[in-house]
């Protein structure tokens, strides 16, 4: 027997494990890489048979994503004079001219407004509630916590029926406020459960010392607990943001124009003769990239976030 620990895998085992895992990771990356590559193809390259791995990259997909265009005859285009910028040039090569911005920008902005708005509200309410549950003797704490969690078991479509009727009556349909409130209600269960876990880990002694020093309860919460919970609050916020960012069911049922977010919009980008795949791919890439970055940032708290704090490393 070697001198190393008996439970340490041997070098050969590590090698095999490494090769299998890396192989899986590479395969799993293919669809995502393919989305990003397709965004830089021309429409004909995107739908070529067999699929093209090597191609001349272009930003046509991105130009199409952000603009609306109209077809013109070569003579008409000739009469317009030289193209003002690279985008105009790309579009004119296809016999079209840019006539304005597409609605992707608005939809993306809606995603940002609704995502950040609901995240802010979820964290605000969630932190207060989590602190309350963690530090006070609330009657029926376990029941209330379970009640908060059980709101997640409803299929979103089932919730959407009465919400649709309620919002129609209140005039909240297709408004940013309506969507922010709705996403907050969905996210608050996650926020309360995660934040309670984080606040439970902060020793009570800190606050008690502060209370003896003459702080009020609220001051102790604000000046002692909050700074201690900052990392937990930040990672909870990112989870709420990702949920609101990715949400589709409520968005597609309750919004149509004014407050529609990007997920219901991206699959509807139509080009000449069907879906404009490079533009769809460009939209998907822009939309998914922030989430990829956040996932890497969050990796240490990922497990905790996705299990509502049930599994902590």
């Amino acid at each position, binding site marked *: 027997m070697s001198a190393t620990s*008996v*439970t340490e*895998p041997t070098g050969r085992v*590590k090698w095999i*494990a*490494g090769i299998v*895992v*890396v192989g*899986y*990771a590479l395969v*799993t990356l*293919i*669809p995502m890489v393919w*989305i990003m590559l*397709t965004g830089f193809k021309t429409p004909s390259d995107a739908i*070529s048979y*067999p699929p093209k791995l090597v191609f001349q990259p272009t930003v046509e997909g991105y130009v199409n994503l952000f603009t609306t265009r109209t077809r013109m005859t070569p003579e008409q285009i000739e009469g317009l004079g030289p193209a003002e910028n690279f985008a105009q040039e790309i579009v004119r090569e296809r016999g079209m001219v840019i006539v304005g911005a597409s609605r992707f920008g608005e939809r993306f902005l809606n995603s940002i407004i609704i995502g950040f708005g609901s995240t802010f509200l979820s964290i605000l*309410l969630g932190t207060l*509630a989590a602190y*309350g549950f963690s530090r*006070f003797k*609330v009657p029926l704490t376990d029941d*209330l916590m379970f*009640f908060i969690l059980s*709101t997640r*078991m409803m*299929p*979103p*479509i*089932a919730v*959407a*029926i*009465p919400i649709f009727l*309620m919002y129609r009556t209140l005039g909240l349909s297709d408004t940013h406020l309506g969507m922010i*409130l709705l996403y*907050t*209600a969905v996210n608050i269960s996650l926020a*309360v459960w995660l934040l309670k876990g984080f606040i439970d880990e902060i020793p*009570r*002694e800190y606050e*008690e*010392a502060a209370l*003896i020093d003459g702080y*009020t*309860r609220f001051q102790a919460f604000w000046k002692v607990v909050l700074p201690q919970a900052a990392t937990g609050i930040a990672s909870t916020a990112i989870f709420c943001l990702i949920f609101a960012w*990715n949400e*589709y*069911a409520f968005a597609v*049922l309750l919004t149509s124009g004014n407050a529609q977010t990007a997920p*219901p919009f991206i*699959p509807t980008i139509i080009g000449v003769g069907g879906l404009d795949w490079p533009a769809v*791919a460009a939209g998907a890439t822009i939309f*998914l990239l922030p989430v*990829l970055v956040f*996932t*890497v940032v969050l990796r240490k708290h*990922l*497990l905790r976030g*996705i*299990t509502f704090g049930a599994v902590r490393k």
Partner: protein
Amino acid sequence: MTDKASVPERMVRATPPGVARTVRGLSDRALAWLFIGPTILLLLAINIFPLLWTIYLSFTNYRANRFNRDVEWVGLRNYERVLTDDDIWQAMQATAHFVVWTIVLQVLIGFTLAWLINAKFRGSNFWTTIIVLPMMLSPAVVGNFWTFLYQPQIGLFNAVVGFLTGTDPASFEMIGDVDLAPWAIVIVDTWMWTPFVMLICLAGLRSIPAYVYEAAEIDRASAWRQFWTITVPMVLPFLMLAVLFRGIENFKMFDLVVQLTGGGPGSVTELASINLKREAFEKWRTGYSSAFAIVLFVTVFGLASIYVKALNKVKER
């Protein structure tokens, strides 16, 4: 906990609650409600009130696209219809197929990956992060894009399968074929959510203390025996938790599949939520679909409660 209480904690405990109350102005109970109240109010307004409304609607013949018609109380008729509707049973079967197979595949692949990652080869943390990426993406956008990968001629999926098996990539349609479509949605969900099961299993594997294996080694237990008597039982509670989460999520599945197949071809991939959406927001049978929604909720809630009881038993062992 109590014997280690700090000086301030003991002082706080020694202070009679009455004194504390008058000093602080607000009782602790009132303060507690000040902290918790807003959350409970929001949930009552946007979760409980709508739920009660759904229950009420489920006993009526209300249709949300007709404002002026009188709403009639129809008793249990909607429930009777839901439970005897062939379409709904078909949707439930499609859902069951989807839930069972995604869980089976994700558990097998997820556990294997976690077990391999736990060998702690160089760079394992980096590759774990890479593997985790798909599960954080927007399911609707992912579903939409997979329709592109699944295109019979131009799609990458078909090209790769054609290349590996020698079949003609144009000869099969993953989302247009009645036999293949149910598997098409299983494949995408497995691609997306295997990392979830993997992460939870990994936490389970890392929670097993090294001395347990060392003791087994001293007892000359074979690697095979160690795997089945130590690794599996100790990871089981974690694995069951992962299955609970995936089960609930996939029972409710909507966004990914609606973008991928739209429930088709025909209705072979029309999962419960997709069927519900069709009844509620295309046929506008509000009362009927409310009854279906309640049936779904009760099913998820009931199954989850039974499962949690089993999970707690496993944990106690």
